[in-house]
């Protein structure tokens, strides 16, 4: 057959594309359950990490079942509503009107008492960033924080998921003395802000840092009524 002819080229391209598609589709289907399991375990690990509990992929499910004593969803008015906290997709909730939005809350029993874990989600430089922030029972002091990202620049924005960045969040407060929600500010060097409401940003990762700051602001704002209700 003429290897430079149109027929050959068309047949070759068609067979190649069908073959490759079949291989990729079957591999993807075969591996899907494993991948989903990994994602689920990672979520549990992240929730546990926000209350400073180290877990490995092996013991995460067990620890999660033991430590997380209660999980429920609330609406923006801070009322508990029907829904499953673990499977609630914050991305979809964000797209809804504030009245319809449901927000997951996880209650975790630790050695230092009951902690409330709030998921947060926002935008970094290249893609979504998200995380879990745990609060003490005063609903003001941060007990721990864990952040993650989809594709921030390694070594720069991606540093938000590293311990040196997350560690300083501990002990910071999100309400000021007069009870206003100030959230946590992420600073560039040279900027000044009250010590108890701010942490240092990442050099070379300013847009990610600012995205994280906005994420915390927005999401604490949605939880505001819930926090105030629980506080009193």
């Amino acid at each position, binding site marked *: 057959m003429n290897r*430079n002819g149109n027929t050959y080229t068309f047949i*070759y*391209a068609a067979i190649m594309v069908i073959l490759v598609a079949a291989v*990729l589709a079957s*591999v993807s289907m075969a591996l899907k359950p*494993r991948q989903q399991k990994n994602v689920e375990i990672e979520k549990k690990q992240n929730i546990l990490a926000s209350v400073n509990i180290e877990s490995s*992929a092996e013991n995460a499910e067990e620890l999660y079942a033991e430590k997380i004593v209660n999980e429920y969803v609330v609406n923006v008015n801070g009322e508990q509503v029907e829904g499953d906290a673990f499977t609630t997709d914050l991305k979809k909730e964000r797209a809804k009107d504030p009245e319809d939005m449901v927000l997951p809350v996880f209650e975790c029993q630790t050695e230092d008492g009951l902690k409330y874990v709030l998921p947060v989600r926002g935008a970094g430089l290249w893609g979504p960033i998200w995380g879990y922030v745990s609060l003490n029972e005063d609903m003001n002091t941060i007990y721990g924080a864990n952040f993650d990202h989809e*594709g921030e620049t*390694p*070594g720069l924005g991606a540093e938000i998921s590293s311990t040196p960045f997350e560690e300083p969040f501990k002990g910071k407060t999100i309400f000021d003395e007069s009870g206003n929600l100030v959230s946590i500010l992420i600073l560039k060097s040279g900027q000044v802000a009250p010590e108890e409401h701010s942490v240092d940003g990442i050099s070379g990762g300013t847009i990610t840092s600012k995205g994280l700051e906005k994420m915390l602001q927005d999401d604490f704002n949605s939880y505001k009524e819930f926090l105030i209700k629980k506080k009193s």
Partner: protein
Amino acid sequence: MSEPLFSKKNIKLLSDPINDSNPITVQVLGICSALAVTAQLKPSIVMAISVTAVLALANVIVSLLRNTIPNRIRIIVQLVVIAALVILVDQILKAYVYDVSKQLSVFVGLIITNCIIMGRLEAFALGNRPWQSFLDGIGNAAGYGVILIIVGFFRELLGSGSLLGYKIIPESWYIANGGFYENNGLMVLSPMALIVVGVIIWVQRSKNRKLIEN
């Protein structure tokens, strides 16, 4: 016809790209990813390994197909082979070594756009037998990887004072702790990668005279 697997000519396929025809410093290919991933040593190493796997496999596959590929759509065929391999690698990493796949994140996708891979498929694998293509792939990926690791080493050491995440510069040296030293913040930004690559090219050419053009 039957020459030994590691004949002199074949060894040259492996060793040439590391120095005389290094893809980054001599052919100036794959620069974009060399700038993007080298802020730290670890991603540089991981990227080097992934490119080696993809380049060697893609070279072998294209070399096996070389007598059937229609000339007019050969670039598309090469791209499909590369993209399919990269997606396969990505899926397998996600299922079996989830934490490694998390570290790689966007790099896996970036491998597809690496011009070294297209370059070697087009220039070598299309005209040579599978074993030679395999060696050529390993050699070129190694030449690329070596530069990546050198750049990553200096950028992380001078930019963050650490290597693979471990602190190398003692805390007490820092000005903040009363010392005399400060990390060079410019090192973590991409322009410095270009300058480090430039320095490597300079050093390499002063050692290897035949690379100097008039």
